[in-house]
């Protein structure tokens, strides 16, 4: 073991912060068992009594039409594609009904950058959801979607966030961060959807407006280990400044059906990345396991490598599935995994407030052995309310002219 690793390990045990050089050294060279052991020390310090949490929510992708065209994305369809869809408000209400039936209280609502959905569409949707389901939470629109709305509406970031909050936005998911290093973003064709600074600025403004958000990292494309650490350090610095991040979630790039192609990072790389994040992100209260990309087994092992949260029961998932991974865990399965690892399982909300014991121990809930999809295959219906908003894309204008 190098002296730098021994020194860094001692600092972690003493609750001191790692320097950038120490962070890189630990990530690259510390033995994995040591990383796991130290990550567990940090987890235990932040979450004593071995409580591990999860949330019941539904990951709804309101549209797959996207002008951004990130090269790592297997989910999007170009404007005018026959496979493109926009969910109608009624479809979204039905999904909320099912979510409530399964004990959930939140939608994670994200989608493509669709030029035919102006800010008003989101405002109307959020208001309609809140009118029907007043206590239901909207964890919606990752920073690149907010940037897209600033460009469409010509409002500032703070202006868009203010309007979305006024119509019902509760919190912002930390998607679209990929790696917050512009060299990587340019290589992945996601620099234009949001630069690193823009992504961070959305979160800064959201936190200042009183919203809590998560932060994510997608690694394993063209990024180097140093760039992954740089990503973590940028998040750590913003968290020092405004402190609104609730959790960090890392996942590996899923290469199937993407333009970029390539291979997926291995399970051990995931555990190493997760454990390192627990050491570097000393000001993040929570670390989520990504069982959706790693599978239930490595997802559960994450609890030994620094994670204190099993993420979402999810109910529906479209993005990762499009790239080849299709794991499903319902509440019974998540709780079984948490308890088998020697933790107490607790349901939480997006603010990581404990809501209580598992729902299925309180009432009959049907088992869910497959994740739902946004739309059944072949359903090409176009929601009626789209006609209330001006079409911006040529293909949508053409479609409406033909009607």
């Amino acid at each position, binding site marked *: 073991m190098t002296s730098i690793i021994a020194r860094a390990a001692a600092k972690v045990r003493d609750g001191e912060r790692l320097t950038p050089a120490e962070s890189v050294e630990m990530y690259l060279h510390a033995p994995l*068992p040591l990383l796991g052991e130290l990550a567990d020390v940090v987890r235990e310090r932040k979450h004593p009594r*071995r409580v591990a949490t999860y949330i019941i929510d539904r990951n709804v992708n309101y549209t797959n039409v996207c002008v951004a065209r990130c090269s790592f994305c297997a989910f999007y369809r170009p404007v005018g594609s026959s496979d493109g869809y926009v969910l109608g408000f009624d479809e979204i209400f039905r999904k909320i009904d099912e979510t409530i039936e399964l004990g959930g209280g939140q939608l994670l609502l994200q989608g493509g950058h669709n030029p035919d959905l102006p800010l008003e569409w989101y405002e109307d949707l959020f208001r309609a959801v809140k009118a029907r389901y007043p206590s239901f939470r909207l964890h919606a629109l990752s920073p690149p979607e907010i940037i897209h709305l600033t460009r469409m509406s010509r409002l500032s970031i703070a202006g868009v966030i203010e309007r979305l909050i006024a119509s019902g936005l509760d919190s912002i998911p930390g998607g679209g961060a990929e790696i917050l290093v512009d060299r990587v973003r340019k290589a992945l064709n996601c620099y234009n959807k949001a630069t690193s600074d823009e992504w961070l600025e959305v979160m800064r403004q959201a936190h200042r407006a009183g919203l809590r958000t998560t932060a994510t990292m997608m690694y394993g494309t063209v990024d180097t280990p140093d760039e992954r650490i740089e990503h973590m350090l940028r998040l750590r610095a913003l968290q020092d400044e405004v402190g609104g991040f609730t959790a960090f979630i890392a996942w590996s790039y899923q290469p199937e059906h993407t333009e970029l192609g390539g291979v997926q990072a291995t*399970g051990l790389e995931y555990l190493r990345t997760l454990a390192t994040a627990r050491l570097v992100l000393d000001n993040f209260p929570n670390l989520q396991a990504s069982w959706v990309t*790693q599978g239930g*087994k490595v997802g*559960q*092992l994450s609890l030994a490598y620094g994670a204190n949260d099993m993420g979402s029961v999810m109910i529906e998932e479209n993005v990762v599935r499009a790239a080849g991974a299709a794991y499903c865990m319902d509440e019974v399965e998540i709780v079984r995994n948490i308890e088998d690892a020697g933790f107490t399982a607790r349901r939480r909300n997006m603010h990581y407030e404990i809501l209580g014991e598992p729902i299925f121990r309180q009432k009959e809930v049907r088992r869910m*052995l497959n994740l739902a999809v946004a739309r059944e295959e072949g359903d090409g219906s176009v929601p009626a309310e789209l006609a209330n908003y001006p079409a911006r894309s040529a293909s949508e204008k053409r479609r409406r002219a033909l009607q």
Partner: protein
Amino acid sequence: MEREVIAGVTRADAERLLETKDLIAVGVQADDRRRQLRGDNVTFLRVLDVPAEGPVPAVAPDTGEIRILGLAPDSESALARIREVAARAGGVPVSAGALHEISGAFAKRMKAAGAALVAEAAVDRRLDRSAIDDVRAAGLDVARWVVQSYTPLATLDLFEHVRALGPLRSFAPLPRAIDPVSPTTGYEDVKVVAVARLFLPEVASISVDWSLYGPKLAQVALTFGADDLDGVPAESGGASLLGPRRATIEEVRRNIRAASRTPVMRDARFEAIPEP
């Protein structure tokens, strides 16, 4: 050079290890033992599965085993199938059947037909020594010692049974029957692998099935005492299949290297297959 004799942990120790939630400590112990016993090589076996009937697919040159799946309707057809497959095997060891179904007399006929190995022996079938001795006397080896299911036997009861079988070249401790509604968890799997490594020093290699358990869990198991990956699919030969075939083999090698181990391709007899 004489191999250092390494004692296994006691049953009480093993019980404690299976119960503990300190996963990392179990992993470190098993990994140390694996290194003492096996060094840093990880072997992997590419298996071409051939159905009991129908055309025999072409065999790619670096296939390590041709496994005839399923049971032919009667013993004569089973032997005919072995002859047919062996004739096209190009020297790749052919395996068939499960130990509990094979008598000593039939094992001799299998050998004469061209089989090199019995495809598997499920230790939860409570195999007795005479069945094993008969098959070995016929000149057949066993390609893999596996666990079909842990119910109703406790893990350590089974491991004790494995111990009683005497030194084995390999043992795959993770069950082959997976309940789709309630599969074993990652903690359970890696602890079973680790305890197998620690409890069974007389077993040379602890094996995990790549196809059944998936690359991620199989790779993590390599840091919990496993040193062999069985069941890597070998596609049949032919230019059109070269793409996926290379992709799988590269993925296996990449996963082994990412676990800081050295990949060694082997055949069903645990003989190394030289790299092209």
